[in-house]
């Protein structure tokens, strides 16, 4: 049986066109963009070309709004610590949605330890943030509010324009982590009213090792990584030219093909959801419609997610889970708890993220594998017996 990889939210293959395009920058055009000789300039030109492509991809004002980083985690750290520390005279209140990625929450928590006041923005049972609560939380001392464009674990797309309106009426900057959304739904930082936006190369079928922070003209922030002053002094360190060039090309291709690809994936995704929900005591997590087109996430009662993942792998179907047992911290997913699941419910989650390799033929194999996996694990489980009694 062929491998069916449905864990694109964790890692994606590099598009072959992207690899071919960027390959010379590993081998022949290997210069350091800071070097003034011809080989260095060649690399510099390629980095600037990539910057332009990224700016176009998110409809930024100009290419100097784009700062390349080593990955999205770095971009999130720069966005959060960089603005909070730089604008400390304006206030020390910061806000994050309860379902943000750890690379947003952990820098926020560190700021909190250092005297900032951190407020979590709650979400409803579908993962949509509570706009009324947002109104109540925001003050003129709120320098930074961070809400992701769409969530990686439950696929829910947030009403960013509504959020932006509220943030800018009362507070200062809106940071949006768009790692999960970029390349799946169109992003327009100007229309959406975004001050800072995070992107990841690999999540666009680009090579790992590059990320981007978009910084709207006029937004003030300071560096959190000091060194030779690359990237306008905001992200020191020699550029990973290969990854940056690849990311630009990946963004260009994504921009061109996104709409068509989403249209292709939607019916496959919907069919998959429909088939899997025929399993007894199975539930969709996240929003039913305001949802990324490649994303299907579930929970199953009485069984545990790591077991689901391992069992599915035996069918050569690769999935993800928010189960505590699969995480490094052994804590259940904060996202699943934030949407109101009990601990024992959050343990039984399975996340499927589709990609360019996914076809309609996969649906039957995956839903059969899921069904057999759930049945087998429930037979082993003392919990399901209690339920049958």
């Amino acid at each position, binding site marked *: 049986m062929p491998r069916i990889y449905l864990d694109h939210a964790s890692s994606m293959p590099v598009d072959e066109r992207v690899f071919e395009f960027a390959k010379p920058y590993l081998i022949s055009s290997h210069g350091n963009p800071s070097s003034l000789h011809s080989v260095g300039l060649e690399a510099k030109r390629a980095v600037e070309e990539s910057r332009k492509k990224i700016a176009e991809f998110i409809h930024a004002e100009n290419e100097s709004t784009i700062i390349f980083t080593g990955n999205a985690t770095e971009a999130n750290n720069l966005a959060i610590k960089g603005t909070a520390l730089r604008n400390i005279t304006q206030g020390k209140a910061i806000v994050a949605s309860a379902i943000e990625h750890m690379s947003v929450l952990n820098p926020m928590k560190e700021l909190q330890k250092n005297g900032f006041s951190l407020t979590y923005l709650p979400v409803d049972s579908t993962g949509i943030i509570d706009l009324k609560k947002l109104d109540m939380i925001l003050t003129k001392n709120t320098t930074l509010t961070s809400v992701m464009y769409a969530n990686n674990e439950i696929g829910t797309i947030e009403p960013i324009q509504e959020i932006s309106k509220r943030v800018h009426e009362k507070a200062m900057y809106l940071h949006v982590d768009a790692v999960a959304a970029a390349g799946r739904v169109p992003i327009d930082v100007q229309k959406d009213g975004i001050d800072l936006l995070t992107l990841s190369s690999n999540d666009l079928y680009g090579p790992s090792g590059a990320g981007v922070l978009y910084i709207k003209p006029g937004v003030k922030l300071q560096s959190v990584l000091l060194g030779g002053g690359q990237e306008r002094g905001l992200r020191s360190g020699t550029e990973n030219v290969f990854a940056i060039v690849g990311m630009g090309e990946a963004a260009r291709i994504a921009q061109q093909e996104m709409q068509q690809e989403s249209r292709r994936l939607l019916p496959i995704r919907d069919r998959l959801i429909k088939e899997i929900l025929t399993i007894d005591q199975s539930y969709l997590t996240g929003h039913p419609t305001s949802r990324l087109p490649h994303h299907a996430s579930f929970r199953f009662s*009485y*069984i*545990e*997610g*790591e*077991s689901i993942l*391992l*069992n599915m792998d*035996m069918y050569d179907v690769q999935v993800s889970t928010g*189960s*505590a*047992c*699969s995480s*490094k911290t*052994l804590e*259940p997913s904060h996202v699943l708890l934030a949407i109101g699941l*009990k*601990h*024992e419910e959050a*343990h039984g989650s399975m996340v499927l993220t589709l990609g360019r390799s996914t076809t309609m033929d996969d649906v039957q194999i995956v839903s059969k594998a899921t069904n057999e996996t759930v049945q087998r694990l429930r*037979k*082993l*489980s*003392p*919990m399901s*017996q209690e339920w049958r009694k």
Partner: protein
Amino acid sequence: MASVGYSKKVMEHFMNPRNVGVIENPDGYGKVGNPVCGDVMEIFIKVKDDIITDIKFRTFGCGSAIATSSMVTELAKGKHVDEAVKITRGDVANELDGLPAQKMHCSNLAADALHEAIKDYKSKKQTK
């Protein structure tokens, strides 16, 4: 010790667990863990002349929780209860060619469930 992922033996026990199920009217029963933490194990034993003649388990939990449950039933079956009660978490992990470090504590409760079942057997025996 396996530090990356699970050993072949863990996966083999996860996929083909031994002694799954329930014993009606067991001579000893032990249950440990709780669903909030993500691991629940129960072990049923049948004992004759202090020898464990039959043993069954049911487990809610991750791969190592299921594999350790399966392994502990294999180790205990046919043993004298005083021998079986000496089986440790470490013995179970060693027999499985090791467990990832972060799994050693949380998902290695199977020996505890066995000890509970034996304790239950002994207390029932005293009251008879």
